[in-house]
């Protein structure tokens, strides 16, 4: 199966939901083609609102549409579709518990060539800090489809982190996910690699490299960051005694921080954090994953240093 970006699931799943009679609409800010909400508009022009380059208005209009019984999904790139309208997400959508789905694309370092201003690295932290907001970070096309579907079926604010980087498929069409959901993709005994999004495939690659060196790594896909699947994460940590989190997001406040908050209280476990510690830079996504130590090799090196 060809690699696909998680954003490729976005427009397609919205069309499926529309065909099933779910009252989904998309509100985008001049990036409907890139986010793929344009697909929903091509299916039914009445279901796409493009406000132009105006992310605050995008979020406010989505809020208003939700009050007329619709289920609005917002677009734009994560750096704008979260950062430029954070106050609207916080005060209008979350405080009022409106049924708005914040689903920007182009999150993370793998945005690549556009460089640091376009690489959103703190959205998980901002979104998971918000009361009422549920946060999902799908790892591939199929889990992105599941996340969009769950977002539509869940009453209230939901954040889905989507990317443009093409990733190998970890799942197939039977994947359902959940809130909360974390899944063990590979069993192991020496260390737990808890990854989300693009980093799930990289953690699986790291596990292969580590196996060659006699290290048995368990790989968990942390599909939902808020809420966390506490049982799956705590049982794995208890089994391996070592946890390394992997995310294309700032270490501060991200999925790794969420896992650390959980384990510190429920099952204290030594941890290391693979993630970003600075702004990014321009280069193809694969090159950046390697450059910042986020690829399979980088994760394996972090694990070896940890267990040494």
């Amino acid at each position, binding site marked *: 199966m060809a690699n696909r970006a998680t954003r490729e699931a976005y427009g397609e799943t919205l069309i499926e939901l529309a065909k099933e009679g779910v009252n989904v609409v998309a*509100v985008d800010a001049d990036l409907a083609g890139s986010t793929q909400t344009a697909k929903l508009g091509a299916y039914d022009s*009445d279901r796409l*609102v493009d*406000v*132009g380059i*105006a992310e*605050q*208005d995008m*979020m*406010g*209009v*989505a*809020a*208003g*549409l*939700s*009050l*007329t*019984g*619709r289920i*609005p999904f917002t677009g734009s790139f994560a750096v704008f579709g979260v950062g430029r309208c954070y*106050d*609207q997400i*916080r*005060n*209008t959508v979350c*405080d*009022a*518990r*409106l049924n708005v789905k914040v689903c920007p694309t182009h999150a993370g370092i793998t945005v690549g060539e556009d460089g640091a201003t376009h690489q959103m690295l703190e959205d998980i932290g901002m979104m998971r800090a918000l009361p009422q907001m549920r946060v999902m970070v799908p790892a591939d096309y199929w889990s992105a489809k599941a996340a969009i579907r769950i977002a539509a079926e869940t009453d209230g604010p939901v954040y889905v982190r989507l990317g443009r980087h093409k990733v190998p498929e970890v799942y197939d069409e039977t994947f359902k996910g959940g809130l909360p959901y974390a899944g063990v993709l590979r069993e192991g005994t020496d260390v737990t690699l808890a990854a989300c999004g693009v980093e799930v495939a990289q953690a699986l690659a790291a596990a292969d490299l580590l196996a060659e060196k006699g290290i048995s790594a368990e790989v968990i896909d942390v599909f939902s960051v808020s809420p966390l699947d506490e049982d799956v994460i705590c049982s794995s940590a208890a089994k391996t005694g070592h946890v390394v989190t992997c995310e294309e997001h700032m270490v501060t406040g991200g999925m790794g921080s969420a896992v650390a908050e959980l384990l510190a209280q429920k099952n204290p476990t030594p941890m290391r954090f693979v993630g970003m510690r600075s702004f990014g830079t321009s280069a193809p996504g694969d090159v950046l994953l390697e450059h910042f130590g986020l690829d399979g090799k980088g994760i394996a090196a972090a694990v070896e240093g940890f267990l040494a």
Partner: protein
Amino acid sequence: MSTTYEVPVQTRSAKELKLIANDLRRDIITMLEKSKSGHPGGSLSSAEIISVLYFSGLMRYDADKPEDPFIDHFVLSKGHAAPVLYAAFHQLGWISDEDILTLRQLGSKLQGHPDCHCCPGLEVCTGSLGQGLSIAAGIALGLKKDAAAAGTEPNRVFVLLGDGEMQEGSNWESIMFAGNQGLDNMIAFLDKNRLQIDGPVDEVNSLGDIQAKFASFGWDVMTVDGHDVSALTEATSAAIEHTGTPTVIVCDTVKGKGVSFMENQVGWHGSAPNAEQAAQALAEIAAKRAEIEKEA
């Protein structure tokens, strides 16, 4: 204009609307004195606008269903004027005589800024300025789509803006969008009381010719004395009849209106009166009530 709902609120005379605005002012002072906290200036300046919106019959809602009264919708974008809205809800019996004394206290329905999960009659949380217009535009767009599908006339959205609030850039995103979309079921009231926390709006960061600015974005613009209930009623009726573009009614008002020592005083934007000041304010408001009652 045909509607799918009965109009549930009886229309009231100008004299009655003036008396209600006066009673709203009484409640505002009572609430704020008790809470020792809140925003009197911009609440008092909006009293006639809120009186006309909620009691003229022009904005349609189900007064018997405070948990979900919306036929037309209302968004208080200038959320710090919450006391004037709470006072209207008190008039409607949506909140009780006891509730009115709990403003800003732990567990109160009457949060410092409107919270739809605490108080009936609300559907959003406002107070972070510059957000109400986009919300209203989203509602208006949804209502127009519903009406187009059903072959009926759309219900309406009313939104109350402050003038200082117009400095928020997000408003201009929304003004452009609503104008281009021709959201003629959207009517904004701009409470132009000319003062913001740091001083006169014209000195802090002037709005310039706000009427011309709205007009250039494709809005229909009216200007009225925001304390004249007849002018407000007439303008609102005209805005309802107007088609093709959204309407803004620029309301010239006096911040702190109705309490002599608060009028046009920046210091009364966000400070509550003490017992002595409240007593004087309530005496002035009572005297005004007697004066209105003598009118024909």
